[in-house]
């Protein structure tokens, strides 16, 4: 009697373990993957997500897939387009220019119950435009020419002074 109860309990346990492992097997063994290109990307950049929803148990059963763009500042349900390959879906989005740099993990849900997480690194884009110059060539005046002019002025004044001095001394003596 006790033996029978034990056997029943064990069988039940095995069933539970088996049952819980079935969805995992369904999701895990189909080689389903999610890819992002380019990766790393940057704010304002057109970025393509690709998901392979194929399941080992029922290949070719996926009819649609949606990308959850909420973490990226995009709609929560972005429909993905079917591709030339069975079970492979693609969506191209433009990352918001306000997106902060970092690593993001948006979820992709397939219609056959499989879900995948894409991992995307977003690089920073510089904020203000670069400051590359101090305006010297747009503002600096021709100091060399000015100096030559001042030199000539000085020379003229000097010669003039000497001449006046000589004239006065000439008058005094004459």
């Amino acid at each position, binding site marked *: 009697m006790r033996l029978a109860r034990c056997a029943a309990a064990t069988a039940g346990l095995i069933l539970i373990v088996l049952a819980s492992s079935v969805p995992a097997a369904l999701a895990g063994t189909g080689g389903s993957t999610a890819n992002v290109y380019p990766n790393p990307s940057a704010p304002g950049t057109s970025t393509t997500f690709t998901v392979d929803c194929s399941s080992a148990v029922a290949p070719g059963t996926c009819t649609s897939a949606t990308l959850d763009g909420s973490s990226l500042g995009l709609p929560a349900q972005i429909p993905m387009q079917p591709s030339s390959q069975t079970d492979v879906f693609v969506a191209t989005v433009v990352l918001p220019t306000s997106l902060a740099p970092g690593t993001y993990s948006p979820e992709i849900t397939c219609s056959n119950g499989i879900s995948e997480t894409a991992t995307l690194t977003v690089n920073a884009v510089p904020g203000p435009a*670069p400051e590359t*110059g101090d305006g*010297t060539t747009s*503002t600096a005046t021709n*100091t060399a*020419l000015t100096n030559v002019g001042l030199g000539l*002025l000085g020379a003229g004044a000097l010669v003039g002074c000497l001449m006046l001095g000589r004239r006065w001394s000439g008058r005094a003596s004459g």
Partner: protein
Amino acid sequence: MPKLVNGVVVALVAAGLVLAFVGSHTLRWAPPRAPQKWEAPSRNRPQPPAPRASSGGQPAVRTVRVAGNRYQVTPMARSVPVSVYIPHIKVRAEIISLGLTSSGAVGVPSLNTPFLTSWYNRGPTPGSPGAAVIFGHVDSAAVGPAVFYRIGDLLPGDLVYVTLKDGSTALFRVYSAALYSKAEFPDNTIYGYTSWPSLRLVTCGGQFDNGTGHYLSNTVVFAQYVGQQAGSSR
């Protein structure tokens, strides 16, 4: 005799006044020239060259001959750029690696080192897929015209050589240039991803605002990757 001396004095003073006036009212250097208008850069994103079928069925690495050297038409491995050479405007400059400043602006070399250029190190390296960006000053009080003073003179087809730390050289060919208002700096056009490697040279240009002490625009030259030369030293 005194009449002659009188004449000389008058001439010296007059010439001196004119030269001093002209000198203080003209610019010592010409302001940086804006690039000529070419095709819109955003519509002319670099595309990889069409693959050429090889006899063996395997995709062969194509080589091109440019200015006497052979270049392999394949993207390069990531390696930090160390120097840039632009024959048309006789620029040969060292490249330093800079990221972002604390205010989120892109780092540029100090105005005290006006002949250095900087590579934006959060983006791709030259020769890798994507747009590598190199900054240089247009002018600096220390020297007048600085390293990128003449990039507005570059024309489509001009060559830009970038030597990487691993000793290889990436060759780029200029395909476009534009003057962009700093208020509407097109980040995506400059930094945005290109599947075929590309290069952007960026400096200041346009009107200078004496009030803020900044140029109001940026001159950007766009170049497309041609190929790589391994182990060359330029």
